């Protein structure tokens, strides 16, 4: 069964909609300027104003992407009365990341407004209530792979015949708790991050949301809409190595990538135009990814990281990078890996140093990978629909 992306929306440091994202990817120019945060590190805010105090900023970020995705998919409220579901990723929004709330909780003086805000900020449940969707609302919290796994879980709901349409994605706000946490781990950088570079000094956090509408082939035909992209394959594997560090040999990531290939029925890896790597700019992550890509694809592998442009958006990263990969695959253009300049002799492969233009009728696939705390590794494979999306 084929599953298609029929709508997308994104906000990140690169901009407040899809066209701004594509423009920056095309010109490799940054969007909003990163700012210095506390503890000392560079942060990438998104150009989205703060909303009401009824909910957290994660929801402020999510709303415009939901609206953009619904509009591009030409979905109406009536379409949600059928077999629809939500599967959304986040790491922080649905736990007590609201420090004011937490302070009150410690003093046992939690007021109703704080509790309301807490319950309103489970992203999947927020979308389900907003659109009166009757199907399941899954909030996937798989650390930095949450966005990719939310897409994967949505694919499973459609493949298993339980749903026709699933709203998938991820959202994450910049927050002092995660900033303090990555600082404590010693992996945050005061400079702009340089994924895969010899002189990489760690990651920059960012905030973002990305929403995708995914549909079964039958639903696409019934609604008469043109699919943007085929969501061809998904893989997920745990390397059971360490709670924060990936396995140096990357067995889990390799398994996840191969699972996505199998799922997509991909026989020839030369169909993959490029890989959007997790590429955080941390020592262990980048080294491991390079080792795995070399093992699977060999020296000709073309990959990049977009985290030099957006920062690491944690629970949103997988969904944001899926959207950006879809935009680049559609345009036949993979951007260079922003921030990379000096190859690391310890790495068997280096990322793209120049934009790569390709014929997307021959190289019609893109791979996006995510790696997370807890040994989680995920991959999704996107494929350009044949005949320009005519089904």
């Amino acid at each position: 069964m084929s599953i298609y992306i029929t709508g997308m929306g994104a906000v990140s440091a690169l901009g407040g909609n899809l066209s701004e994202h594509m423009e920056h990817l095309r010109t490799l120019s940054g969007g909003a300027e990163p700012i210095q945060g506390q503890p000392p590190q560079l942060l990438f805010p998104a150009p989205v104003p703060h909303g009401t105090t009824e909910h957290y900023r994660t929801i402020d970020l999510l709303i415009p992407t939901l609206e953009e995705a619904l509009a591009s998919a030409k979905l109406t409220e009536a379409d949600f009365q059928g077999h629809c579901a939500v599967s959304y990723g986040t790491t922080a929004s649905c736990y007590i990341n609201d420090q004011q709330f937490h302070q009150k909780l410690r003093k046992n003086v939690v007021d109703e407004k704080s509790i309301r805000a807490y319950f309103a900020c489970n992203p999947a449940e927020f979308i389900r209530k907003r659109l009166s969707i009757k199907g399941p609302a899954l909030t996937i919290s798989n650390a930095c792979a949450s966005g990719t796994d939310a897409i994967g879980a949505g694919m499973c709901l459609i493949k298993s015949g339980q749903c026709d349409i699933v709203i998938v994605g991820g959202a994450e706000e910049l927050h002092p708790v995660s900033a303090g946490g990555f600082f404590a781990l010693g992996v945050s950088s005061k400079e702009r991050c340089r994924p895969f570079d010899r002189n990489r000094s760690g990651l920059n956090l960012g905030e973002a949301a990305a929403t995708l509408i995914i549909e079964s082939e039958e639903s696409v035909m019934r609604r008469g809409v043109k699919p943007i992209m085929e969501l061809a394959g998904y893989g997920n594997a745990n390397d059971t190595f360490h709670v924060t560090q990936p396995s140096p040999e990357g067995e889990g990531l390799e398994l996840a990538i191969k699972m996505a290939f199998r799922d997509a029925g991909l026989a020839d890896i030369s169909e993959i135009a490029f890989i959007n790597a997790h590429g955080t700019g941390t020592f262990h992550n980048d080294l491991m990814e390079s080792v795995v890509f070399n093992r699977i694809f060999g020296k000709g592998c073309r990959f990049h990281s977009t985290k030099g442009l957006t920062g690491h958006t944690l629970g949103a990263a997988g969904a944001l990078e899926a959207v950006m990969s879809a935009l680049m695959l559609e345009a036949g253009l993979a951007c260079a890996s922003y921030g990379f300049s000096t190859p690391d002799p310890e790495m068997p492969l280096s990322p793209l140093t120049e934009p790569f233009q390709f014929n997307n009728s021959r190289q019609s696939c893109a791979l996006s990978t995510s790696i997370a705390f807890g040994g989680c590794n995920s991959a999704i494979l996107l494929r350009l629909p044949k005949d320009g999306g005519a089904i």
Partner: protein
Amino acid sequence: MRTESGHSIWINGTGIAIDGQEISPAVIFDRPEIPYENDAQMEKMKSLKKQLRRSGHFVSAAVTAAAAALNESGLEMEHTEKAALLLTSTFGDQDATVDFIDETQLYGCEQGSPIKFAHSSLNMGASYAARLLGVKGPSMTMINFDDCFYNALVTAYSLLSTGYCKNLLLIHCESDTALAKILYKWQKTGKAEIEKPFTINDGTSSAVAFVLGTGKSSPLGVSLSFRKVNEPPGSDKEFQAGHSDARLHPALTLAWTVMEKTCCKESFSLTASAGLNSRHSIQFEIE
């Protein structure tokens, strides 16, 4: 959902841990104890307990229940390695999250402990279970206030029926936290008028785990059909395993029904239902 008749999968193992302690069906239902297959397996379980001695009670409950379910299923290591792991919870390991935030508030955001930060991640329970039990297939953690266990069953069914895995370890884990206590108090006094998507008991850290599969792979395996219905819950079962957390009632109801079924030799089916919230219930049928 599309299938009016519900979804069907197999349950090949069940495990319950109340406050980190395994609750054996042998004690509850007078069912013969499932012996550890050999000394090596016994040693493995001892080693597991040793490795859990410093983990929080959420992780301990999740892993203990999962280990018991895996033991009951008799799943061989080569199949365990390829299994998927799904952990579902309403709040996650809130104590671990709070530990880290407490530190940043007390000592400043530059002074947090890296270990506490790592453990504040909501997927740590699943991570420990995967690492200590050797589960290398797809792993996911789901955090939902609403329909927590139902969502997990639907996702498990999806992963199994689409071939992402043949076996899946499903864990529902809840911990007693400051927030749970406040909500419970409010519920009892009627202080809050907010819509409460689940009920809270003044409970403990507990977990219920199932080894699910696409087929029967254990002598104790039973088939499960489930569906969500638009009916308010009846009276949930009184569980004998201590004062369990009400958020776990759907999972515990299922575990209890499976244990009842595997204790009797008759071939009839058993049905049960449990409240998901004030408006919906989940119905189970075990054969």
